[in-house]
């Protein structure tokens, strides 16, 4: 039988088959950049307008500058303050200090997700098998990440320019564009870090851990440079230090853009080069493909949950303990300055905190610790959903395992981790504080540590509720609640938000211990709500179809 000759050549779908990877990556990076652009914009706008509304007179502003401008502790946390007696100066300082770190975390996670995450999922293989090479595809993915950073910058720049035009704020258009550039510089560098660590590591989690270690080191170097005299040069070896050197609005040092651009470009080139040198799915750094069997924990679903979550939870606990140690260490110095200035005390009182000295400082900064613990809860809710979405859960549920007992195992492990994290936070803060003779008691700090657990339990409850009813929305619900709560609590007090809005923040419900005593009854209610939501979510999970990605 004659073979049918092909009647026509395959047609070209779309114009540029070679640009598929860039398009796919750009779409996802830009969507994420847009979301975080809103967060950045909201933060900048609310900081500026909140400051203008709170410190109406120049006298009040000078007081504030006298307080924070000379405070080594605050310098250490979010960088030194310059010209914070002006709205523009304060906004630049506060926004850059917080958002460069937030942006770096975003960049790291987005970069590793869109490169190593796609490769882990096997989707990269399909793309690279098409009309492209590993190197070209990686280059395109980097262009896509660039589009994400550009989106973040564009939205931030627009809002900063608009807010800057307000007579109360007064940031010129050119300054606003440079300011927005400074705000996204950390994000851009760490997008590249995420892309490079995606080549070095064997899994997405490993890639995020490598990048996270660099971010931690970068923060630590900057912290030492800003808080220790004679070590200011260290700022020039830290990516976060370069961002700080930009000093947007105030000094606008474009020179610091050089190391930022050079660092990013070097990482991009290295990433593309390494992508061509390694095998698909393999890592550049050696990965142990074999291991001795460690079966002690692997006798049931709870043991498995411990085994799977342990590396992540240990990493978080270490980060939380370290952060708590640092704030404990600087609490006395920071507290002394706060209590010597009535305007600073007034500012902090607006966050709902009162008290004296180190306690007051710790009451404010424990919000950051609470944020970290809540992120642990959100991450574990997402991990449970991922186990379902990737089909690993099937292996358990086709065996004699109740869905409820699988979920309960995971929740018990998470809850234990939250309590341990809270306890470690209290203990480490006490160690740091005691080394400086801060006179804040162990009991108070352990209570303050326990006090940050209930908001995290609420976040976990919302995550599990989503797992039961809207499994594909677990990540949005859990991380969304954390981000919403944090921003509302941080800026709500400054700009006098309606209490109904404030009440939606899980952190607002939490008493700012150790500045004030813990409201155990409120905490109990929060835990009860979290447990109830988790229970309802668990019941819904038992009655629905399992769903993949």
């Amino acid at each position, binding site marked *: 039988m004659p073979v049918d000759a092909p009647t026509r050549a395959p047609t070209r779908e779309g114009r540029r088959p070679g640009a598929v990877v860039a398009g796919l990556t750009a779409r996802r990076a830009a969507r994420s950049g847009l979301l975080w652009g809103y967060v950045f914009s909201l933060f900048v706008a609310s900081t500026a307008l909140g400051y203008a509304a709170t410190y109406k007179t120049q006298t009040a502003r000078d007081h504030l500058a006298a307080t924070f401008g000379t405070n080594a502790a605050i310098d250490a946390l979010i960088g030194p303050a310059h010209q914070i007696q002006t709205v523009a100066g304060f906004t630049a300082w506060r926004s850059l200090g917080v958002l460069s770190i937030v942006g770096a975390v975003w960049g790291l996670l987005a970069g590793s997700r869109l490169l190593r995450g796609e490769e*882990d999922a096997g989707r990269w293989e399909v793309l690279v098998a098409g009309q492209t090479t590993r190197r070209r595809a990686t280059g395109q993915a980097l262009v896509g990440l660039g589009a994400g950073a550009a989106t973040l910058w564009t939205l931030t720049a627009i809002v900063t320019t608009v807010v800057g035009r307000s007579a109360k704020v007064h940031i010129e258009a050119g300054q606003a564009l440079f300011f927005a550039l400074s705000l996204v510089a950390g994000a851009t560098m760490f997008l590249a870090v995420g892309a490079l660590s995606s080549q070095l590591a*064997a*899994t997405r989690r490993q890639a995020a851990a490598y990048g996270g270690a660099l971010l931690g080191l970068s923060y630590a170097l900057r912290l030492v440079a800003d808080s220790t005299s004679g070590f200011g040069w260290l700022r020039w070896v830290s990516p976060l230090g370069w961002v700080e050197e930009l000093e947007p609005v105030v000094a606008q040092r474009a020179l610091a853009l050089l190391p930022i651009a050079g660092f990013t470009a070097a990482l991009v080139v290295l990433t593309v080069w390494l992508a061509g040198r390694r095998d698909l799915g393999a890592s550049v750094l050696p*990965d*142990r*493909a*074999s*291991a*001795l*069997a*460690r*079966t002690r924990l*692997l*006798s*049931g*679903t709870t043991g*498995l949950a411990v*085994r*799977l979550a342990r590396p992540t939870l240990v990493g978080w606990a270490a980060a939380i303990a370290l952060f708590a140690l640092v704030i404990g260490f600087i609490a006395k110095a920071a507290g002394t300055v706060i209590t010597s200035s009535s305007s600073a005390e007034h500012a902090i009182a607006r966050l709902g905190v009162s008290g004296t000295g180190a306690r007051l400082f710790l009451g404010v900064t424990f919000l950051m610790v609470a944020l970290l613990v809540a992120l642990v809860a959100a991450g574990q809710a997402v991990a449970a959903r991922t186990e379902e979405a*990737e*089909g*690993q859960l*099937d*292996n*358990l*549920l*086709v*065996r*004699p*395992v*109740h869905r409820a007992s699988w979920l309960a195992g995971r929740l018990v492990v998470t809850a234990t981790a939250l309590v341990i994290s809270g306890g470690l936070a209290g203990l480490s803060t006490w160690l740091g504080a005691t080394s400086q003779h801060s006179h804040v008691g162990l009991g108070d700090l352990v209570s303050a540590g326990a006090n940050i657990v209930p908001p995290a339990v609420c976040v976990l409850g919302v995550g599990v509720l989503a797992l039961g009813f809207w499994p594909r929305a677990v990540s949005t619900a859990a991380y969304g609640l954390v981000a919403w709560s944090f921003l509302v609590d941080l800026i709500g007090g400054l700009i006098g938000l309606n209490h109904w809005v404030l009440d939606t923040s899980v952190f607002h419900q939490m008493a700012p211990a150790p500045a004030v005593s813990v409201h155990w009854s409120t905490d109990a209610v929060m835990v009860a709500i979290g447990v109830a939501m988790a229970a309802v979510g668990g019941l819904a999970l038992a*009655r*629905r*179809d*399992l769903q993949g990605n």
Partner: protein
Amino acid sequence: MDVKAIRTEGLSKRYGSVDALSDLDLEVAEGEVVGYLGPNGAGKTTTIRLLLGLIRPTRGRAEIFGLDSQRQAVEAHRRVAYVAGEANLWPSLTGAETLHLLGRVQGRVDSAYRDELIGRFDFDPSKKVRAYSKGNRQKLILIAALMTRADLLVLDEPTSGLDPLMEQAFRHSVHEAREQGQTIFLSSHILSEVEALCDRVGILRDGVLIDMGTLAELRHLSSLTVEATFDGSVPDLSRVPGVSSVEYDGRVVRCQVRGSVEPLLQVLAASSVHELLSREPSLEELFLAHYGASTEPEGKPPNAG
């Protein structure tokens, strides 16, 4: 009434406006090896996920050894082992750790048999799951299922990614399981595999079970292929009762016979036949007959009649 290994009544699953499975009535007796055939998207995996209680039926019900798939899933699963077509395992665990975990969760393992299977499938359990190829991951979930010696093995395209040697090892293991009296429900689209292993075969199309029976029964409904080579003149076979699709190729004649072969033999005996070949349709031919005739009304075997 004796308890069936698998029994479904009007089992149906609807996703939006698509009927993934419609009114499935299926019975698999204990000790039977049943093949479940159908092209991609016919509803094979949906059936299996319903049987295992991973998804919930829109209508109808399913039982495993008399236990309801939804309400008594955990009790039912004590007697079931399942192999998925795609092995999604925890990437950070090693093969040995995975086998240990899944064995402990199942609650019973024949350790000697497990070690034998590891040897038979030439599997290295010391590696991490993320370092295994697709074929090796498939071996891992096969070993994890077989080592429990469960009363019912539910296999959903279990040999995807296995090389021919390992396919042989798999068939050997299924034969062993059958000799042990285990029931096997094998979903596949590898027809030779089903033909070699199964007592009965069900054929699924667009979510509807369109045929179910032993291979002999399915063949009985279909025609026999006969090929005759003649020394001398070639007789006209087109008017012989029961004969159809006559093809002439020189002195070779090919035709299909349905029902009794007696009339054809009478005609052939009167001619000088040099060579006579006849064979049953392969499962592939049966299968293609079901799917090729897409204009046939659904639910009725196209060759019945």
